[in-house]
C-alpha cells in the first residue's frame, strides 16, 4: 500500500473510530472540550524546570486512555508527525540556556537540558490530550461543542470544511498521481517540469470537489447548527458531564498548585517519618 493510501485509510479509520466512540459517550462534548482546554492551559503553565509536576499531569492521559479504550500505540502512530515538530522545537533549548541548575554526580544538568525535557513532555501531553479528546468526540460533536460555546457559525463551518478538505485533497492527489504514473511508466515520482501544472490542477480539482461536499451539506439542511444529540446524553449524562468537568479541572489545579507527585514519592520512600 502506498504511503498516501495509508494516510487516507488512517484518517478514515480514526474518523470512524471517533464517531463510534462519540455515539456511545454519555459525557457531553462541551465537557470534553473544556477539560481538554483546561488541561492544555495548565500543562503549558508549568515551570520550565518542573519535570516531576508535569509527570503527574500524565495521569489524565493514562486514565482517559484506559477508560475510553484508546490504544497508546495506535495513537502514537497517528500523531507521530506532530511529535516530530515538538522534538525539533525542544532540541534547540540546550544551546540557548547553558546555566547549570543541578549536579548529579559528575554530570552537570543545564537549564537548557531540563527545559528541553519539560518542553518535550508538555508537547507530548498536549498532543495526546487533544488526540484523545478528538477520538472521544469526533469532528461533528466537536463542532457542536464549539457552537454550544458560542463560536460563530462561520468559524465552525470553516473548521469542519478544512477537516473534510484534507481527505478530499489527499484523495485527489492519489487519483492524479495514479493517472500520471500510468502514463509515465518507469518514472520515479513526478517530473519536476510537471509540478506547476500538477499543483494548479490539483488545487482546482480539489476545490471543485470540496465545493460539491459543501453543496451536498447545504442541500441536506446544513445551516451551521449542530442539532444532533447523542441518545441519552442529555437526560442521564448531564450530572455525569458536570462531575467529569469539575472533577478533572479540580485535579489539574491540585496537581498544578501542590507538588503532589513529590509528596507521594516522599511518602513511599520514607513512610516512617
Amino acid at each position, binding site marked *: 500500500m502506498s504511503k498516501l493510501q495509508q494516510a487516507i485509510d488512517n484518517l478514515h479509520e480514526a*474518523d470512524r473510530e471517533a464517531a463510534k466512540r462519540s455515539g456511545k459517550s454519555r459525557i457531553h462534548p462541551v465537557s470534553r472540550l473544556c477539560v481538554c482546554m483546561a488541561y492544555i492551559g495548565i500543562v503549558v503553565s508549568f515551570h520550565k524546570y518542573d519535570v516531576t509536576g508535569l509527570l503527574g499531569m500524565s495521569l489524565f492521559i493514562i486514565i482517559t486512555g484506559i477508560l475510553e479504550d484508546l490504544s497508546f500505540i495506535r495513537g502514537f502512530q497517528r500523531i507521530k508527525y506532530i511529535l516530530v515538530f515538538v522534538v525539533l522545537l525542544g532540541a534547540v533549548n540546550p544551546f540557548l540556556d547553558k546555566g547549570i541548575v543541578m549536579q548529579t554526580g559528575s554530570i552537570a544538568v543545564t537549564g537548557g537540558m531540563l527545559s528541553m525535557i519539560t518542553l518535550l513532555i508538555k508537547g507530548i501531553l498536549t498532543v495526546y490530550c487533544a488526540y484523545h479528546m478528538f477520538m472521544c468526540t469526533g469532528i461533528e460533536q466537536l463542532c457542536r461543542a464549539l457552537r454550544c460555546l458560542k463560536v460563530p457559525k462561520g468559524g465552525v463551518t470553516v473548521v469542519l470544511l478544512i477537516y473534510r478538505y484534507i481527505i478530499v485533497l489527499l484523495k485527489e492527489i492519489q487519483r492524479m498521481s495514479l493517472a500520471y504514473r500510468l502514463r509515465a511508466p518507469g518514472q520515479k515520482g513526478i517530473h519536476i517540469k510537471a509540478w506547476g501544472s500538477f499543483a494548479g490542477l490539483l488545487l482546482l480539482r480539489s476545490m471543485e470537489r470540496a465545493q460539491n*461536499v459543501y453543496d451536498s*451539506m447545504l*442541500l441536506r439542511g446544513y445551516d451551521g447548527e449542530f442539532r444532533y444529540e447523542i441518545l441519552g446524553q442529555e437526560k442521564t449524562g448531564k450530572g455525569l458531564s458536570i462531575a467529569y468537568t469539575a472533577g478533572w479541572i479540580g485535579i489539574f489545579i491540585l496537581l498544578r498548585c501542590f507538588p503532589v507527585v513529590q509528596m507521594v514519592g516522599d511518602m513511599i520512600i520514607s513512610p516512617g517519618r
Partner: protein
Amino acid sequence: MVNLDHLTFTYDGNREVLSDISFHLKAGETVGLIGANGAGKSTLLKILTGLLTDYKGQVKLDGMDVNKKNLAAVREKTGYVFQDSESQLFLSTVYEDVAFGPRNYGYSEEEVQKKVMSALQQVHIEELKDRPIYRMSGGQKKLAAIATILSMEPEVILFDEPSVGLDPKNRRNLINIINRIGGLKIIASHDLDMIFDTCDKTILIEKGKLIFYGETAKILTDQRLLEESGLELPLSMQIRDGNRKINT
C-alpha cells in the same frame, strides 16, 4: 409543482449555458432530462435546487420563487442525487451519512433512526448500515447516496446520472426504486433505456436550448431528432427495430 419561465443562465456572463427554457412539471410525474455532454443538464438541476441562483427568468417550486431568500424552504422540498456520489457522502458510515439530513431538520434521534432504516430498506442496503463508506464499491456508494436523499422524504427528487456505474442487477433495482418512490422525479441521464423504463415525460436539451418536451415514447423513438442532438436510439428500440427489419 415546478415551473420554469424563460430561464436563461450563464456561468461567466458571456456564453449562455441555458437559454430561454420554459416548462411546467406536475407533482407525481417522472420526467427524463436528456441531451449530449455539456448540454446543460446538470446546470439545470443545480438551478432547481437553488445551488445556482443567478439566473434570468423565473423558476418556481410549489408556487415559491427559487431564490436566495427561499433557499431553506426550497431545499427542504428538494433532494439532489449528485453525479459524483463520492463527494455527496462525507461521513464515516452509511448510517451516519443517511442520518445527516434528518438530523439537520431537527428530528429526534428515534425518528432519525426510523427514517434512516426506511431509506436503507428502499434501496435494499440495510446490511451496509455500519459499513465505512470509503470501503464500498462505486455502485454501493451510489445507492447509499440515494438513501441519503430518501431519508429526507423530499417532494421533488433530482437525479444526475443515477445509473452510472451500476451493474445490470442494481440498475434494474434502481429503476424499480425510482418507479416505487412518490413525488416529482427529474432524471438527467444518458441511459435512455432507463429513461424509457421510468419516465412519463422527457425533456431534450441541446446546447442549452429546449428542443423537445413531451411523451417519452414519442421522443425516444424519434431517431432523427435524437441523432441531431448527438444522441442515439435507446438500445431496446434498436433491437426492436432490428427485429422488425429481420422479420420483414
